[in-house]
């Protein structure tokens, strides 16, 4: 138990504390001792003082005795008394002084002896006083009474007697003299003399009888004298011998006491010194001891603890730095150091193990890295595989699809047409399957990225509905869009993916619905930060059983395997749809009543767009009572609600006869009649004809809603008397356009014009747009060429990047290429590199900013990014549909001419000769309105909107052009010039365009002086244009 450092340190500390306590005790007792000695010294000093006083008193006492002896005065006796009292008092005090040493007995003995002597002295003195008194009285008696003759002797009786008496008298006289002498000087000779005389006198008296009396008296005298001498001797003896001896002895003893006390004092002093020295010695010893012990402890601490700890610490440091160690000190110790050493040993062992483990881990890591690289490579390979697979599949599919598309347009026998159509359907199904699988793979791999951009949700829906209308209407299913709940048109999101969702849902609905209608009900809810788009696809199809509904959205699941056989499909559609919804922070749910229909509702979140627009321009139809004639209730309902939103009083008629009935009653009740084309019994066309027969109905605006599949000549309906027509399904925009058109052009009927918003592609012969198609695949080239020709574009081809660049360079400046359709994977120079070369501006004579649209079979998102990164502007996944192609071309062509109208639905600037004829053809003064209007399909509203936009946007450009001098900021100038040129092109402001072109050249040449000149001209032309342009109208 004493082995632990803790115990050792506690013991050491305890020792130190003990020493400390002992030192305190020592110091305390030393102080006590010194204080005691001090007291003793003080007491002996006062004792000494007392002794001196006592001595003085004794001497005084003796003095008084002597005075008494000589004067016999009472005063001396009184002094003596006082003195003795004082002395006794002092003696008592002296008696009180005794200490504990050996001399006490002696001291007390001496005091006792002094006391006895004093008592004797006192009593002797009293005896002296009494003796003296007696002596005096005897003396008086002897002198006064006894010695006179007459008192001693009788009267002589005989003659002889007389002589005897005389002799006696003489003798007594002599005796008296001796007495007197003795009284003065008490010496023996006087006694002897007295005794002789008295004896002689006695002798004489004894001879005579008559002297008997005398004899007696003389005997008495002799007796008295004897007493007198005895008393005298007595008190003289007392005073001279006894009392003097006592006094001397008292003084001697007093001195002895004094000496004793002095000696004691010296002794005490010596003792004090000795004690002090002893204390000093003890203190020194203790200090030395303490110091030694502390040093010892320190040494122990250093040798036993600090050094070992330092060593152990060093060991631990080494261990922590993983340095090699030889041996661990103190491993055999049983204390904490030992424990530390053991710990260090363990640490060391662990270190060794750790290094071994590390080595293993490093090896493993290396392996892992290798494996990771391999995995990455595998992943890359997989990605490449996916990409190349999609490329490899899509390329031939593109060919197949394209060729089939072209084939259907060529003149074929009905049988051939039928086969071709079937082949095309199969190809499309296959493509869907492939796309689904690829999409699913991408989603699974987390590689599906959303493309977030501003788009018009209403347009998107309308477009979608129009496209799907073909299939639906082929099956005689009403496809109805209810977009009345959408009030905001421009939102941000991925329109492609939304369309994919819709495709899936509506596709399914169409697929599984054999009769009835499919209603697509869309609503857009405004939240604070975003929109919630909720779309329900409600069909009247076969429906889904409850037990199937739960697994509906699982991968590779269809409601029924039998359905797969019946309806085809991969079973991935809904799974993809669900994942897409979730990707867009949304969800999808389905409800269904088996045999009656299903309702698929999905909700997704869309971002808000900065450029918000109302989807439909406000239109007041308050004074436009409208009659809707449609056999489909749902359709009627949607129409009615839409019209009522605009304020129109709506009347519905479920069939032609009902409509005729209403009109017959009072046609003036209505202003517009919207007629469905396909109705049982009497169709819309016939109804229209019927109405127009009656001139009472001339005020009526008739709008026909044919089916998308109705292939009629453009003027077919106007010739029939319809003011406007638009294909079903009804979209708010088309309804609006039709209403606006028919109401604005009151003379529409007379002019036999009609508006068609049909998105069907019409061939246009004339096109200044030059397009370069770059593809190494001949089939693809042919497909693209065919498509472009169909849409009225002139296109050249190039087989690879180099050829493309060469073609670009060869192009004359007056007829440049406007768009390049670029394949990505090509030999010699691929699409990416070609684009980069073009964009770098290194190739002189070509427009480096030319829009380049990728056309690639690489359908993955990464491919698109790669294309954009390489500098391409847009992307088309093969196989390309003609619609997509036209859309993109239109979009990019418009963009390059700075037409920000994103309307891509309008397929072509369909010439309306009658309309054009009526246009005032303005000269080439400031702008060509006719030409501009033509660009917008005679849509003046749109033109006006564009003009308004021009006024707004061009101001900025012109200001930039005017303000970028000193020194000329070419980049800014170039940008502003380019922007202005585009904007001017939209409205056919040719003088401004020409000036911009000139400036363009000058900027390229950096011709500073002429630039300024042209700048001025530009400003003037611009101001002139603004005056000429119509004032902005607000719609």
């Amino acid at each position: 138990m004493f082995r632990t450092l803790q115990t050792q340190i506690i013991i050491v500390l305890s020792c130190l504390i003990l020493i400390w306590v002992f030192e305190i005790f020592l110091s305390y007792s030393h102080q006590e001792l010194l204080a005691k000695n001090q007291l003793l010294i003080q007491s002996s000093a006062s004792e000494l003082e007392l002794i001196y006083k006592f001595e003085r008193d004794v001497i005084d006492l003796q003095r008084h005795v002597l005075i008494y002896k000589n004067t016999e005065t009472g005063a001396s006796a009184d002094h003596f008394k006082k003195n003795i009292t004082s002395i006794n008092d002092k003696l008592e005090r002296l008696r009180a002084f005794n200490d504990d040493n050996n001399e006490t007995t002696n001291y007390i003995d001496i005091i006792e002896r002094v006391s006895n002597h004093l008592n004797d002295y006192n009593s002797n003195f009293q005896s002296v006083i009494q003796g003296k008194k007696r002596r005096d009285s005897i003396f008086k008696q002897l002198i006064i009474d006894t010695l006179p003759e007459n008192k001693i002797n009788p009267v002589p009786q005989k003659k002889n007697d007389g002589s005897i008496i005389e002799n006696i008298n003489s003798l007594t006289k002599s005796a008296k003299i001796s007495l007197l002498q003795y009284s003065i000087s008490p010496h023996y000779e006087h006694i002897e003399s007295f005794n002789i005389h008295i004896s002689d006198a006695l002798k004489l008296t004894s001879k005579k009888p008559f002297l008997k009396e005398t004899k007696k008296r003389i005997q008495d005298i002799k007796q008295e004298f004897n007493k007198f001498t005895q008393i005298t001797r007595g008190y003289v003896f007392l005073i001279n011998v006894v009392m003097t001896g006592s006094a001397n002895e008292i003084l001697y003893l007093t001195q002895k006491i004094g000496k004793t006390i002095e000696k004691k004092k010296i002794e005490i002093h010596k003792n004090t010194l000795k004690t002090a020295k002893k204390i000093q010695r003890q203190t020194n010893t203790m200090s030395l001891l303490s110091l030694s012990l502390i040093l010892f402890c320190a040494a122990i601490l250093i040798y036993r603890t600090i050094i070992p700890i330092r060593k152990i610490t060093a060991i631990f440091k080494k261990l922590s730095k993983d340095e090699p160690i030889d041996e661990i000190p103190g491993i055999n110790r049983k204390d904490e150091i030992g424990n530390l050493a053991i710990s260090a040993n363990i640490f060391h062992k662990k270190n060794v193990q750790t290094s071994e483990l590390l080595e293993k881990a490093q090896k493993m890591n290396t392996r892992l890295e290798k494996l990771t690289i391999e995995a990455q490579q595998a992943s890359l390979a997989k990605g490449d595989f996916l990409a190349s697979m999609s490329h490899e599949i899509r390329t031939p599919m593109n060919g197949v699809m394209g060729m089939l598309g072209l084939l259907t347009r060529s003149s074929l026998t009905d049988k051939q047409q039928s086969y071709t159509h079937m082949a095309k359907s199969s190809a499309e199904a296959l493509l869907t399957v492939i796309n689904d699988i690829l999409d699913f793979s991408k989603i699974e791999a987390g590689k599906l990225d959303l493309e977030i951009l501003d788009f018009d949700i209403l347009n998107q829906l309308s477009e979608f509905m129009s496209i799907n209308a073909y299939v639906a209407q082929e099956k005689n299913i009403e496809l109805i869009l209810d977009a009345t709940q959408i009030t905001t048109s421009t939102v941000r999101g991925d329109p492609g993916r939304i369309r994919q969702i819709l495709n899936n849902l509506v596709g399914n609905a169409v697929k599984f619905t054999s009769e009835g209608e499919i209603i697509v009900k869309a609503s857009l809810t405004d939240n604070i930060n975003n929109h919630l788009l909720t779309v329900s696809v409600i069909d009247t199809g076969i429906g889904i059983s409850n037990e199937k509904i739960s697994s509906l959205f699982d991968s590779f699941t269809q409601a029924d395997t039998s359905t797969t056989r019946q309806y085809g499909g991969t079973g991935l559609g809904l799974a993809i749809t669900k994942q897409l919804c979730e990707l867009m922070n949304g969800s999808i749910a389905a409800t269904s009543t088996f045999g009656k229909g299903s309702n698929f509702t999905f909700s997704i979140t869309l971002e808000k767009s900065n450029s918000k627009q109302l989807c439909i321009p406000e239109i007041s139809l308050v004074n436009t009572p409208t009659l809707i004639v449609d056999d489909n209730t749902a359709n009627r309902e949607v129409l009615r609600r839409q019209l009522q939103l605009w304020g129109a009083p709506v009347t519905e008629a479920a069939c032609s006869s009902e409509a005729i009935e209403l009109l017959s009653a009072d046609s003036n009740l209505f202003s517009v009649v919207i007629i469905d084309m396909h109705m049982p019994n009497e169709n819309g066309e016939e109804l229209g004809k019927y109405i127009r027969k009656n001139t009472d109905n001339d005020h009526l605006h008739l709008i026909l809603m044919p089916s998308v599949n109705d292939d009629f000549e453009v003027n077919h309906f106007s010739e029939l008397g319809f003011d406007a027509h638009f294909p079903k399904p009804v979209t708010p925009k088309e309804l609006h356009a039709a209403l606006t058109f028919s109401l604005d052009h009151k003379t529409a009927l007379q002019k036999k014009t009609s508006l068609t918003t049909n998105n069907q592609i019409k061939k246009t012969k004339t096109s200044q747009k030059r397009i370069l198609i770059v593809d190494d695949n001949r089939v693809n080239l042919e497909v693209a060429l065919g498509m472009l020709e169909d849409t009225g574009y002139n296109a050249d081809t190039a087989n690879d990047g180099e050829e493309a660049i060469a073609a670009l360079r060869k192009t004359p400046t007056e007829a440049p290429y406007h768009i390049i359709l670029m394949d990505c994977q090509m030999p010699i120079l691929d699409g990416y590199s070609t684009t980069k070369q073009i964009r770098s501006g290194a190739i002189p004579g070509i427009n480096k900013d030319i829009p380049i649209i990728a056309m690639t079979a690489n359908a993955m998102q990464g491919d698109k990014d790669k294309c954009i990164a390489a500098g391409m502007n847009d992307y088309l996944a093969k196989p390309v549909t003609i619609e997509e192609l036209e859309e993109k071309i239109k979009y990019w062509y418009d963009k390059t001419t700075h037409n920000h109208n994103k309307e891509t639905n309008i397929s072509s600037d369909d010439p309306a000769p009658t309309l054009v004829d009526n246009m005032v053809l303005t000269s080439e003064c400031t702008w060509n309105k006719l030409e501009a209007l033509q660009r917008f399909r005679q849509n003046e509203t749109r033109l006006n909107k564009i003009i308004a936009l021009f006024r707004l946007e061009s101001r900025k450009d012109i200001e930039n052009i005017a303000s970028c001098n000193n020194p000329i900021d070419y980049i800014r100038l170039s940008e502003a010039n380019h922007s202005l040129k585009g904007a001017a092109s939209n409205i056919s402001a040719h003088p401004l365009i020409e000036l911009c072109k000139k400036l363009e050249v000058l900027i390229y040449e950096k011709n500073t002086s002429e630039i300024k000149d042209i700048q001025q001209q530009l400003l003037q032309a611009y101001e002139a244009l603004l005056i000429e342009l119509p004032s902005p109208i607000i719609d």
Partner: protein
Amino acid sequence: MKKQPPSDTPSTIDSTTVDLHKRKTLEGIATLGAGVGLSIKAPYVFARTKTKLRVLGTHVTLQEELRQRAMEDLGIEIEYEAKGSASVLQKASMQPGSFDLYEQWSNSMRVLWGSGAIQPIEKKRIHHWSEINSLTKTGQLTPNAKIGAGDAPNKLLHIQDNGQLGEAHSDTISFLPYVHNVDSFGYNTKVIPKGKPYETESWGWLLNKKYSGKVGIVNAPSIGLFDLALSAQANGFVTFDDIGQITKRELDTLFNLLIDFKKSGHFSGFWTSVPESIEFMASNRVIIESMFSPAVSALNGQNIPVAYAAPKEGYRGWHGVMCLSSETQGKEKDAAYDYMNWWLSGWPGAFIARQGYYISNPQRSKAHLDSAEWDYWYQGKPAAKALKGTDGNISVQQGEVRRGGSYTTRLSNVAVWNTVMNTYDYSLQKWYEFISA
């Protein structure tokens, strides 16, 4: 010795009235006792009377053991009044009625007799008178013995026809001879080499300058004076015509010398009692001093080696006297005679022999001593065994020899007897001057 009262210095001399009164009371009691005594016809010697006997004296003989023993033996009441020698003498001489028997030393005889305080003692009433040795009868124990100067007891014993005290034998004596001894000085043999008795030991040592500051003298002129006179004479400083009768002139010379010694610090102290003399020596205050033999015994008992010198000049002798008060009559007188006879009856002599004192009829006491005691105390032979004192302590170690030899030898070497000289009164004055110097 410790049983002794601390001091034998005279304390009072004024108790006359009280004592007289006491005496009358006691007389009454005695009378009553006497009547009882007669009726039972008790044996004559130690007549058992309840008479009260008043004994006045010093501590030397008035010892409690003796009183008890005497009362027991005699069947009487005994009252001891012990005082210092001077006061005893004064009281006795002035108030004879205050006592029945007086015990002191021969030097008080002239005063007592002169003052008429005592009455003659009839020899015939002293039963062992014949046994009393020649010291008091002739003054010599042996024919060759020195006759000491001063008041030698034989010169004062017999009452002469003229009423004076003298040597001529008569029927009456002034005192009963009983206790006696010789005194000298004692010295500490640790400091002073032991001298040879009668050869080197000398009174002269008391005034030896070597012992200056360490000399003690008894504070009594009638005793100490002789020690100093003998010393001065031994040193040849002075000579006396008769050392027993020093003249005024000789005293002047002597005291001038002594005062010089005193002033030089020669004397360390003057003791007034035996215990004091013991203390002087024991405390090393002195190394040589006048001494009485009991003090020597006591100091030896305390292992302080004190030699009681046998000076070659001879001892200072003293002889105890027992006197009958002149006023004592009747039963008290009878009792007094009984007491005197008791003293000579043997046991008391043996008792005091153990204290170093001699008795005048030693042969009767011999029977009460064992041979070792007798041989040591009287014969001057080495002690055959360790001898006990009266206090029961060993006072003599075996083999020890009494300093000065046998009784005869010692008493044959008396230089001077304690004496009240004619110059006594003068010496008192000189003594005062001396001790105060």
